[in-house]
């Protein structure tokens, strides 16, 4: 479990977590600013699994109130990078 240090690293981590839940061409075509849940058709269980994997792989605490910040790969990367160094 390593908190990402750069924005690019953070995006890689986010995509790796998504790949665990919804691998496939949709993920490959996903832009960093796309709405993740809409584009990958994640339901609440999928999203919970995504959050769980993200929290476990980074060691960062992710509360339900933080969920809106995980809307896109880009916003999630910003959130992780901000939470990481603390």
């Amino acid at each position: 479990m390593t908190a990402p240090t750069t924005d690019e690293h953070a995006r890689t981590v986010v995509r790796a977590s998504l790949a665990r839940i919804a691998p496939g061409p949709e993920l490959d075509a996903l832009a960093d600013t796309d709405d993740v849940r809409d584009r990958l058709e994640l339901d609440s269980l999928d999203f919970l699994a995504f959050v769980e994997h993200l929290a476990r792989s980074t060691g960062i605490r992710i509360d339900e109130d933080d969920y809106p910040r995980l809307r896109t790969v880009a916003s999630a990367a910003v959130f992780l990078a901000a939470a990481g160094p603390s």
Partner: protein
Amino acid sequence: MPSLGADMESGTLVEWTVSPGDRVHRGDLVAAVETEKSVIDVECFEDGVVERLLVPVGTTVPVGAPLALITPDGTGGPSPEAVPPETPAAATPAPPPPEVAHAPPTPAAPSPRATPLVRRLAERLGLDLAAVPGSGPGGAVTRADVRAAVAPPRPLPSPPSPSPARLRITPYARRLAVERGASPQCLTPGGDGVIRARDIPPAPEPTPAAAPPPESPPESPPEPPPATAPTGATAGAGASERMRAAIAARMTRSMREIPHYHVDAVLEIGAVLERLREVNRRAPVPDRMVPAVLLLHAAARAARQVPELNGHWVDGAFVPATSVALGVVVSLRGGGLLVPTIPAADELPLPELMASLRGVAGRARSGRLRSSDTAPASITVTDLGETGAHSVHGLIFPPEVALVGFGAVVRRPWADGDLLGTRPTVVATLTGDHRATDGIVGGRFLHVIDTVLHDPEEWP
């Protein structure tokens, strides 16, 4: 071969995860079986030692055929049991194991015509065993016979009125027919008008009928196959086609047999969601719950309180279920759906129901359901809200008599006394079978859901 779904006739053994000599326990995964809809992990129902594997990988066998011999612990050898035990070797047409001196047909069975498990199944479904034709040795009634008696017109990817172009034939029988060079049009269907594997005459040169390659596409079939069963598809596309055909078959049967009625209600769930948020705020990620689990919980409780909607329509009569086996519709990435079952869902505390939901949904989506996930449901819930749909008026999965639907959580104008505000709401729907109940019962069911959702005692 266990029955892993209401429509299943046969399955292909695709993996053994145990070997002879292995010690196994109840609940262990021992094999994987491919059905029309998916690959399913088969759990062991017994403690014991694997004596012998009877079915090689790649072999397709009918429901009821024994897969392996398991010697129960402490008995030192005789009276081997088949896996799963609902279909012990004694009740199936398979030859008795040679290394066992005398494999007695159901040693302590109270009746020679069926095993206790089959008897219990028949009881649960309200069937008189004496009226069920047995296909086992000595006319014994097998689990498959009971299932066939419960659901005589098995759903098939073809319209109800058979025509020369669209024959009522099971996929396995069709494949057999092609392999044996028999034209499906020349075959005589069984009593229910459906051509099954047993109706296919043997090939001129005996072929190992039990071992067709699982994915071999029929070559130049004698007659054009129905549109729902295309040939020559790739393995992946074939699986998806088979799933579509299976869904179409069950829903066509539902439309054909069930006079549906629909009722709905808008439920206000502001306080419920707030409470959930509180619970989740304190909880680590793996322990968090999603709103859907609250709705499932309320539906399961309502099914217990309105037993007229929890059970099966069997032979022209409603047979109430003794517990709430909740079917949960899981849509799959890439299309299709599976409906795993959560047994005794009305008795599970919320965290356990959440764990069960995550378990079955995860296994359904990874394509590896377990045999226990495929137990017959007594009522099914579909939660289409996750897709954004505001409400869903679904079709009942026969032989069940009701289907519960939930739409998306939407903020709507809401009158509280004389005050008007906006609140998170969800549209709950109940599809009922008019043969069993009327709309007023469906309305009562939705009212109970509302009551359960607002009952603080229901909370952890």
